[in-house]
């Protein structure tokens, strides 16, 4: 049995001994390199582009502007949550006559070397006519503001409205009403390895592209459509990836431009994004403003909640369509049973880098808002915030529970879970009952400490299907071809464990193959915490089918009913007697003799997502002089139904927490009023390092297996990220309960804390207001 054990990752030996092969490592004969000239303006008309000087530079092979794109080229389509109304806001690979964000590709240059291409880029002269930039959602939707996509007619590109019950009716009955504005800042996943591509036309005229990640088969189809080529004539090969997190691996302008240039030039073209480019060119995420109204009674029971959300989606709609805003709404209610809900979400265009998903998309934002609101309700009523949580939680007997809101084409229906139980586990792990006493003792020593909780429900296992093909090879190893991608999550290890469990072979005898469109016939890729749930289930069933075949041959050979046979530790055993009958190898040889093909394919389809759930808790100490927040203890309890490999889950949660911490305290893609990104390098865009990330106590729970898949698993990829900000914010507020401070926006800056402390504790009179 390897499922459920913390076996070592099979990916690691190769990667940690420097044998990984990233796109930057691949060098082909005659390879040339591309550089992209990007807009320095947030919003401008392109009056003229002088390319002559650049073209005349020796070794420059190609200079291309938006005018040179094929006339019948379509813009880059939406991969997820596509919507007809939004097709008018899609992006072309090069700007045609207008630029709409700093960093928008304007000219593609290909030269014999990167040096030459950079030199040529210096000789390009683009004459811009600057236009008024739009950098704020509220300005964007004013009637007199210039419209970025005239065919849509408004910068309020798309409205998503969903409701359950009548918020207005419920509010009338509520004794207390709280209204608050909250803000989640723009930030994004920052992979260590920036994007890169290498495209080459083979002798047989077929195009090979190295470098797609995450959703290789999807991008393969998009590329074929945009290039108007038969997909059989294109091969996409996934390389090793230095971090995915959502932004990496989507189809970007360069994913068209580089293969197009290779086809035009008939020689390999490589492009590696540099970090400064990355900060403006790769998807941003998260920026949302929330206006929340909640109605509740004196017990803290929340009866109605309305949230009007303004999503700053940036200059164009990218491949994610409206995935993030839709998920914000669908997952907003979290673990709570609210009677009436209403969400009005505006997807607003501005002159900033376009946005997409980032680990926990929509949930990082929604969880911050919701879990802060819960603590605000508790504060208003002078109640224990964990008690307010408890009083609003969905009870286990209400499962499966539908929250009445749709996301990604399905009504959100929680499959299983015991939310009150996980709250209790966390309360005792953090010794919440005695915290007030500890806090008072700390105060006596002049220390300010606080403890905060944040609960969440995650979604995982997005369908519609995933593919797996298993085959016993001549060398005795099992090949497992999957439609998933390896973005560092340990997909090879997890799938190997699943196959090994079915077939009674060591997991190290399984070779997982992925990400090559010539080798794996189809796949949906790795995103939305779907890998182990959907791809794992496909591997489970494909292996099961192969096992059936083996046992049938074994049964015939030994004149035993195959239902009484199983494979354990590479032996055929009899279940009833638990006796070893013969080595598996013998049966494999027999199969080959009989001409039995030892290969099975399986496509696992699923309509509904599965919903893991958990809680984060943070104990913080505040430096009263500087306002610095020190995390004294951090705790995550996460119920994922069943952990295929607890070590992988642990790693996901630690890494996820680090990114959540970045969003809570450090990271911000901040723009100035002229639409310039002013945090465009790591000097100003702060990422937590090992110095900032605390030890994290993690409890992986398996109390609520998912009934929706054979493994009972729910995904583990994003739960480490989504609740960090509210847990820390609530802890800070708890620490500073004597001071006038309300955390409603991210990142939480030390100066806000310091200012509150300098102003001093509030008097009782003020407190009563």
């Amino acid at each position: 049995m390897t499922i459920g054990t913390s076996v070592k990752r099979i990916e690691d030996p190769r990667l940690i001994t420097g044998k990984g092969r990233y796109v930057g490592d691949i060098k082909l004969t005659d390879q040339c390199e591309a550089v992209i000239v990007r807009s320095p303006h947030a919003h401008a008309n392109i009056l003229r582009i002088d390319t002559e000087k650049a073209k005349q530079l020796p070794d420059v092979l190609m200079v291309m502007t938006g005018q040179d794109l094929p006339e019948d080229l379509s813009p880059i389509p939406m991969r997820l949550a596509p919507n007809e109304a939004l097709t008018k806001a899609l992006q072309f690979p090069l700007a045609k006559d207008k630029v709409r964000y700093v960093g928008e590709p304007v000219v593609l240059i290909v030269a014999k070397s990167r040096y030459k291409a950079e030199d040529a880029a210096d000789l390009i002269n683009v004459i811009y006519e600057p236009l008024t930039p739009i950098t704020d959602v509220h300005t964007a939707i004013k009637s007199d503001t210039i419209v970025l996509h005239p065919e849509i007619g408004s910068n309020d590109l798309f409205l998503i409205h969903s409701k359950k019950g009548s918020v207005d009716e419920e509010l009338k009955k509520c004794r207390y009403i709280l209204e608050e504005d909250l803000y989640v800042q723009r930030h994004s996943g920052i992979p260590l390895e920036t994007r890169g591509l290498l495209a080459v036309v083979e002798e047989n005229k077929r195009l090979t592209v190295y470098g797609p990640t995450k959703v290789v088969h999807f991008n393969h189809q998009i590329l074929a459509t945009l290039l108007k080529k038969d997909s059989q004539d294109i091969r996409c090969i996934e390389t090793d990836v230095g971090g995915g997190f959502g932004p990496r691996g989507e189809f970007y302008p360069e994913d068209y431009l580089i293969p197009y240039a290779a086809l035009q030039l008939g020689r390999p073209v490589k492009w590696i994004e540099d970090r400064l480019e990355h900060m403006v060119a790769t998807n941003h995420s998260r920026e949302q403003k929330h206006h929340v109204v909640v109605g509740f009674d004196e017990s803290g029971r929340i009866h109605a909640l309305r949230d009007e959300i303004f999503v700053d989606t940036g200059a164009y709609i990218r491949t994610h369509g409206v995935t993030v805003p839709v998920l914000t709404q669908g997952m907003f209610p979290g673990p709570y049973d609210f009677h009436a809900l209403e969400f009005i979400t505006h997807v607003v265009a501005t002159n900033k880098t376009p946005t997409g998903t980032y680990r926990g998309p929509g949930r990082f934002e929604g969880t911050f808002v919701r879990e802060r609101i819960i603590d605000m309700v508790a504060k208003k009523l002078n109640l224990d915030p964990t008690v307010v949580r408890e009083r609003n939680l969905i009870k286990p007997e209400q499962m499966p529970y539908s929250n009445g809101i749709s996301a990604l084409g399905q009504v959100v229906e929680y499959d299983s879970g015991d939310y009150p139980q996980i709250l209790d586990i966390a309360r005792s792990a953090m010794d919440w009952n005695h915290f007030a006493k500890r806090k008072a003792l700390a105060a006596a020593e002049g220390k300010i400490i606080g403890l905060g909780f944040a609960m969440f429900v995650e979604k995982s296992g997005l369908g519609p299907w995933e593919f797996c093909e298993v085959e016993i090879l001549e060398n005795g190893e099992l090949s497992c071809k999957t439609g998933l991608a390896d973005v560092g999550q340990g997909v090879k290890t997890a799938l190997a464990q699943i196959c090994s469990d079915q077939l009674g072979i060591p997991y190290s005898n399984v070779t997982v193959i992925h990400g090559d469109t010539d080798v794996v016939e189809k796949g949906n890729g790795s995103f939305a915490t779907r890998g182990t749930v959907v791809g794992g289930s496909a591997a489970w069933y494909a292996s099961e089918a192969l096992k059936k075949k083996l046992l049938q041959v074994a049964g015939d050979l030994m004149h035993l009913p195959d239902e009484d046979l199983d494979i354990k530790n590479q032996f055929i055993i009899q279940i009833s007697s638990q006796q070893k009958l013969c080595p598996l190898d013998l049966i494999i040889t027999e199969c080959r003799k009989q001409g039995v093909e030892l290969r099975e394919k399986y496509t696992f389809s699923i309509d509904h997502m599965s919903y893991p759930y958990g809680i984060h808790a943070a104990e913080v100490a505040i430096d009263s002089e500087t306002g610095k927040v020190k995390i004294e203890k951090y705790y995550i309890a996460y119920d994922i139904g069943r952990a295929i490999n607890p070590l992988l889950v642990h790693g996901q949660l630690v890494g996820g927490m680090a990114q959540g911490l970045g969003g809570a305290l450090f990271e911000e893609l901040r723009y100035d009023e002229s639409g310039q990104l002013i945090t465009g390098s790591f000097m100003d865009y702060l990422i937590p390092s090992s110095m900032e990330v605390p030890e994290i106590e993690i409890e992986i729970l398996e109390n609520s297996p998912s009934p929706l898949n054979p493994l009972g698993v729910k995904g583990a990829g994003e739960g480490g990220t989504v609740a960090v900000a509210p847990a820390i914010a609530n802890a800070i507020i708890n620490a500073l309960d004597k001071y006038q401070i309300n955390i409603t926006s991210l990142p939480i800056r030390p100066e806000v804390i310091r200012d509150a402390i300098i102003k001093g504790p509030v008097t009782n009179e003020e407190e009563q207001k």
Partner: protein
Amino acid sequence: MKVQGEIVVEASQEEVWNALNDPEVLKKATPGCKVLTETEPDSYKADIVIGIAAVRGEYEAEIKIYDKLGPNKYCLAMKADSNMGFLEGNAVVELDYSHPKTTISYEGEAQVGGKIAGVGQRILSGIAKMIVKDFFKKIAKETKARTAM
């Protein structure tokens, strides 16, 4: 970002005013200025090379002086383009004479775009202040040199 400051010159207001309107002085005072040509009265084109980390590069600049109220005040607008991005700024320059010294005070806004905006934002305002301060210091020096002649 805002840029403001003042500098005291030991010269009469007229002398300072003349220096501030003399292309030769402007050229010498503008840090890294290689060429400065007057395209029309009070309008200049300049090639400037800046060697400071985040804004390093060759710039083509246009400088315009307007709203002149000699010898008390003028406005200055500058636009500079380079492969690293662009710089734009405007400032009000005022002179105040109190025997035997003239105080030049300046106040304006500068804006950067493109790569230089994204890099080293926290040092940019320092760089801008340094460049502007350097400019007026040199104006003071040149004025003194001319007065001494």
